[in-house]
């Protein structure tokens, strides 16, 4: 049930939406396609659905080619046996809830009584049994989204595609639906490709995140991989906030000392996975910095608080250090005022080094 995309290209006019993309989405997992708008994530999903025709390449679902430019295969969407949930819900306004959910079964020419039974079962799963005979237009946004999910599940599709399904819902409902989708997936073990531009949604939902940029996948991996071990600068900056600065590495493997480039400021020392060469880009997440208050403390980086922004559960400090500006996040109850002198230290495990040039 895995989905394999090989050397896929898709252009709109002169704009290359997908640029020689090769990627495999694992079966039985939630794969989240994440990226800024125009990065090619939705286009990739629509190509897999058959709603968009790639200019070249190959797409296989469970090893069955559904598109292949080399072999001249292009299965229409209705033959690909998928389920899809759209951003606009795409609930058919002229039908009842039952009529909407039963449509995929009608398309498969399933006998009437069976349709009735399976529709009822699926509606029970999404919690809409009460609304079965209502006109779809009479439902709220969240209920319409459930109809759309039920319609997608009812035909037992081998693959479920979700195109920003939660972005039209309000914030509270979004979190609720996100958890429901997660639980549903764990119950039925479906393969889900989920497109979103919301990084929080991506991290809380994904087994594996595919971060798209300019029609390519910049990095794929578990949410923690991408957050703590970004492969390139773009990923580090896209997910959350990151302090990035060039460093020089000295010493042996196993006992590497990290100095800020062009200075003698020792950042930290320890057993660190180093990229090739002695130059690297160091990434430190704002919450990883430890704050020491003692002035004149020889250990750590001396810093001056420029600005302390209170955001409720946390406080964001913008500090000036000899190696440049840093962002430091502390719990909200710790008070700092502008001009305060502090020192920053970091544990070696909290440091991530990227190759210098990326």
């Amino acid at each position, binding site marked *: 049930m895995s989905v394999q995309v090989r050397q896929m290209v898709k252009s709109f006019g002169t704009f290359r939406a997908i640029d020689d993309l090769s990627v495999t989405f694992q079966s039985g997992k939630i794969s989240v396609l994440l990226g800024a708008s125009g990065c090619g994530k*939705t286009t990739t999903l*629509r190509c897999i*659905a*058959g*709603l968009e025709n790639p200019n070249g390449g190959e797409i296989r679902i469970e090893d069955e080619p559904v598109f292949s430019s080399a072999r001249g295969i292009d299965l*229409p*969407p*209705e033959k*690909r*046996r*998928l*389920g*899809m949930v*759209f*951003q*606009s*819900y*795409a*609930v*058919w*306004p*002229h*039908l009842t809830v039952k009529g909407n959910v039963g*449509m*995929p079964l009608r*398309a*498969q020419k399933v006998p009437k009584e069976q349709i009735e039974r399976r529709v009822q079962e699926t509606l029970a799963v999404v919690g809409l049994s009460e609304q079965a005979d209502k*006109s779809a*237009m009479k439902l709220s*946004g969240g209920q319409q989204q459930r109809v*759309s999910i039920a*319609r997608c599940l009812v*035909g037992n599709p081998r693959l479920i*595609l979700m*195109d*920003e399904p939660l972005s*039209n819902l309000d914030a509270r409902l979004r979190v609720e639906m996100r958890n429901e989708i997660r639980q549903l997936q764990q119950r039925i073990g479906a393969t889900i490709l989920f497109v979103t531009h919301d990084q929080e949604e991506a991290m809380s939902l994904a087994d594996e995140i595919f971060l798209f940029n300019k029609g390519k996948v910049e990095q794929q991996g578990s949410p923690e991989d991408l957050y703590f071990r970004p492969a390139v600068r773009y990923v580090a900056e896209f997910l959350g906030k990151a302090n990035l600065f060039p460093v020089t590495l000295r010493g042996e493997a196993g006992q590497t000392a990290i100095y800020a480039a062009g200075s003698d400021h020792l950042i930290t020392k320890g057993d660190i996975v180093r990229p090739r060469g002695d130059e690297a880009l160091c990434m430190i997440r704002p919450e990883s910095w430890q704050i020491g208050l003692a002035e004149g403390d020889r250990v750590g980086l001396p810093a001056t608080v420029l600005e302390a922004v209170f955001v409720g559960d946390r406080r964001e400090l913008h500090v000036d250090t000899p190696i440049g500006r840093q962002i430091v996040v502390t719990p909200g109850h710790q008070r700092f005022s502008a001009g305060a002198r502090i020192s920053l230290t970091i544990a070696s495990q909290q440091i991530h080094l990227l190759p210098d040039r990326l």
Partner: protein
Amino acid sequence: MSKANVNIPDEIGVPERSNVRRFLSRRALTGRLWLTVFYLVLVIFAVMPIASLVIRGFVDTEDSRVVLTLNAVSAVLAEPSYWAAMWNTVVISIGAMLLATVIGVILAWCLVRTNVPWARLLEQLATLPIFIPPFIGAFAWVLIGAPRVGLLNLTFRGLGAGELVDIYTYLGIIWTTAIYIAPYVMMIVAAALRNMDPSLEEAAQISGLNRVRTMLLITLPVVAPSILSGAVLSFVICIGLFGTPVLLGMTKEIYMVTTRIYTELQHFPPNFGIVAVLAIYLMVLSVIANFLQGWALKGRSFVTVTGKGFRPRIITLASSRYLVAAVIWLYLVLTVIGPVIIITAAAFSTFTWSGTFTWANVTFLWTSEDVRSTLWNSVVITIIAATATTVLGFVVSWITVRTRMAGREILQFVVLLPMSIPSLAFALGVSFFWLWMPWSVYGTIWIIIIGLIGRYVSYAVRAVTSSLMQIHPELEESARVSGFGWLSTVGRITLPLVLPAIISSWVMVYSIYISELSMVLPLYTANTRTLSILSFDTWAVGEFSQVASLSLLQLVLGAGVMWLVTTFTRQRHAAAV
């Protein structure tokens, strides 16, 4: 002071409060005064004709006393020929409605959902039949399909096939009516197809429905309310048509209610009671149609949340796209291109299809005194009426969209009321009303102008309103805050922004007025004949070649001026950008 600001209800004194009230009521009062004046004008223009018509059907003068009576109603109900006319109106209108809806839906679907070549251009061309006045379209089809002398029959006879076509039949009237009103259905349905959320169809395909089933089970039902609106609109237009049934129906005595009204008006003295009852019948029919539509659409407004702006998937036809294009071109040939060529040919012939050419019918256009005077009347009436209609339309939509004045909903209702009243019935009401009034408006061009404004001001209101709604009120509010009064705000901000809509609404009513026949018919006198009346009279005496040249003149005045104005304003628009 600051305490007073915080706690207004407790701290403000009584004199201060009444001050506030007086200030507010003064502003509201001027507003209300203006609205009342305005409201009265519109009531006289738009509502009184309808009221007069209804009253006229139920009153009569006995010994110079006005009495309430059902005489006219029972006279109409007792006469089989009136029943026949009512029956014909229903049958022909339903027939034309069905045919127009089929043509319109097919055109819309092909133009919006297939990769037919030059779709944009074709769609614009396919709206052209609307601008052919019914009288002229019907006249062209007389030249094409009349028995013996029609072009088609001449051809068929030449081939030894005999007389195959007769336009003077029910089918002929239905056909000619339907092909000219089909673009209304097309425009409404095309807009619905464009506005439909494309993911509705995509979801259907993902669900396993193929193209044909997607169209039948999803697309058509979703746009069904629009198809119904288009159908009802064609029905309402059709029951009020005069030009087509008079040209095609009278020869074989297929009378519709409109043509029956016309023949009643030819009697001397005309029985106005009977005329009024017949017109009321048309009104009732139109109201029933609109009511049925409202009932069928109850709770079925399919407005959907749209997602990303992906274009609807266009159905890629292979070489059959050229076939589809050819069918659309055939439609244009039958409605616009063919008729214009045929009318032109007829205008240059000594008599229809004689094969002998002459300039006489064309030189007649500038030698005849009749043409000169009716042309002058037409142009004066059209320009005054179109300008007044547009100004009134702008003011009404500004009041309804932009102000919170009390009674503005009633204003809108008043204006929209005549929209579903057939022109001939409305014009009769206008004549009844002004005959009762002490001022001698009847017999001047002003009664025609007043009638046209009352009947069509709703068109201008709609055009301007839709444009005004798209302009955010904050654009005006920021001008007010910057120190402009409301009048200069309207002048400097609102008017320039809605100017394109104002121009297009002027052009639209202009093109209606310049060739309007059924509105003018009950209102003209010997001195106030218009070009359309002249063509009609010329047709009545059988001078077909002169009718052809007069039709050409009307087409040039209508379509030509429209084209000039739109090109000119578009260039200006382009220059401004």
